């Protein structure tokens, strides 16, 4: 399933640049214009005059060598631009996911165990609101409150502008620790908090809801009653018997949410001027830098496919039944 999807994605990315009105050479020269002779020469030089399937094969061949073309604006290879910015997006997405799981999982478990309690009702109400939240607005509200009124957190960027941190890993949290610059790590954390909360809100809501309903389902099973009858401690029943089975659908949801996180990152990064992939894609579209858009879309799709594959593999770890079935 992974390979046909990947081929499909390459078709979409390949078509993208050719569906845009005007040919790629006109795009490259921009508004300056070009004389017809040179235009024809460039078309030939870049291979745009060849049959479309030949162009596609060439595109695939380049792709397999890691060549996604060069950005029209910066003239840099798209892949290296992506790789410079990608750690920022990973850092943000990972901390958003940790935030969402760390709050959503316990909240869902407690809500499921104490069904019908005030806590259950509040979790469900809050998560419904979170699920319906326009996160770009949520981000602006948090900026008004925490940056504007209270002055606790900075408005944009990954670290204070007065600090310069040598990029080693690209992950600001690690780099700022390594740099031994006083206050750098603190500044990075302060910059990370609001974007994390904003990006993590929808996954948090979804995870809490799904954990709750998975818990409810599992708690109604016979083996839970048996465990109770055997006189096991409730903590052990919930923590060991119920949770392990309830986690299976939850892991699916977490995997699906990771794909959505990358989409959410587009909005979050735009609000907080976070120098990651999402902001870069939006900027590339507004600069009509189509090779960057093409490469970016392709790479993001690959990441999403990769994450989904990883989720499929994780099932076996938490659910031995799936592992055995696959093995036989």
């Amino acid at each position, binding site marked *: 399933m992974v390979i046909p999807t990947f081929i499909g994605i390459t078709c979409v990315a390949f078509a993208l640049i050719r569906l845009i009105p005007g040919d790629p050479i006109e795009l490259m020269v921009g508004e300056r214009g070009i004389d017809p002779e040179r235009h024809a020469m460039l078309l030939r030089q870049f291979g745009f005059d060849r049959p479309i399937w030949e162009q596609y094969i060439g595109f695939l061949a380049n792709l397999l060598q890691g060549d996604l073309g060069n950005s029209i604006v910066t003239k840099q290879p798209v892949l290296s631009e992506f790789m410079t910015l990608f750690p920022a997006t990973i850092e943000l997405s990972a901390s958003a996911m940790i935030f969402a799981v760390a709050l959503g999982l316990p909240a869902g478990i407690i809500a499921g165990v104490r069904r019908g309690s005030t806590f259950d009702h509040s979790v469900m109400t809050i998560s*419904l609101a979170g699920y319906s939240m*326009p996160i*770009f607005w949520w981000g602006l509200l948090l900026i008004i409150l925490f940056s504007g009124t209270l002055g606790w957190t900075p408005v944009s960027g990954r670290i204070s502008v007065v600090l310069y941190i040598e990029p080693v890993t690209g992950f600001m949290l690690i780099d700022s620790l390594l740099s031994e610059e006083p206050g750098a790590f603190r500044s990075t954390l302060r910059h990370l908090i609001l974007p994390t909360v904003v990006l993590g809100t929808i996954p948090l809501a979804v995870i809490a809801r799904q954990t709750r309903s998975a818990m409810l389902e599992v708690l109604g099973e016979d083996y839970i009653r048996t465990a109770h009858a055997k006189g096991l401690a409730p903590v052990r029943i919930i923590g060991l018997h119920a949770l392990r089975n309830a986690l299976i659908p939850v892991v699916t949801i977490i995997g699906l949410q990771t794909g959505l996180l990358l989409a959410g990152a587009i909005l979050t990064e735009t609000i907080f001027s976070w120098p990651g992939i999402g902001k870069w894609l939006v900027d590339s579209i507004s600069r009509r830098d189509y090779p960057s858009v093409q490469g970016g879309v392709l790479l993001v799709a690959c990441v999403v496919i990769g994450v989904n594959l990883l989720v499929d593999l994780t099932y076996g770890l938490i659910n031995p039944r799936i592992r055995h079935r696959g093995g036989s």
Partner: protein
Amino acid sequence: MSEAIRSTAAATPPHPIQEFWDYFSENKGAVLGLLVIVLITLVAVFADFVAPHPPNEQYRDAFLRPPFWQDGGSLLYPLGTDAVGRDMLSRIVHGARYSLTIGAIVVTLSLAVGVVLGLFAAVFRGVVGGVVGDVVEFLIMRAMDIMLALPSLLLAIVVVAILGPSLVNAMFAIAIVYLPHFVRLTRAAAVSELSKDYVTASRVAGAGLPRLMMVTVLPNCMAPLIVQATLAFSSAILDAAALGFLGLGAQPPTPEWGTLLAEAREFILRAWWVVTFPGLAILITVLAFNLMGDGLRDALDPKLKR
């Protein structure tokens, strides 16, 4: 024995709509959602009468006025004015028109195309069969898988990048993005219906493919589609606002809610109201649709019926 038969015959089952309403109205959140949706629809339809000012009229003596309950605010501009002196309330009221229209058009487009593709996939597999059937089903379903592999907003952005930023293109993009959900739901429902006796009976009676698809099978697949349509309606409003916010959807001075937020961004630390109210409008509308969608799912899901 005969008495028992008579009493069953006498107890006429409730009308389907009555039965549906009984289930639906049990869920208070869903009814609340429905009420809010009706209210917003009325506001959108009668926007010209409800809004105190024309949405694009600039009052040059009233830039960035706060809402009426704050110092400097007045009831003339109940929710304040924006940076060029336009009444916020009027713009939000008119924005309801855009959001509801976007939702309606997106869902209609996506549902119509999705249902047809889904039915084709199911019918070609089950009824036509053979190599042709397999190929048609494979092509349709794999195309949908590919679309699902991309995050929805990213796919919408790609489509907008190709077509150019505008409200119409944004709607088109979002409709394409939601297509796979409808195709998959329709196919799944249709495949399970196609194996039932009444469909076989209809085929034996000589029903052609179009009749089989549209008249025999489709009405029995509607329940999950209605639920999905409601949820897609709310997502469409959210995504259109997100595109508007990124400058890829409706363009200024259109008072679309996402575009209002984009225009307001640079004033967030000076004028909280230009940011707060349009977003609140989006949140309330989306919440209402999600509440109603949950209620519809409970009412229409046969598994939950007693």
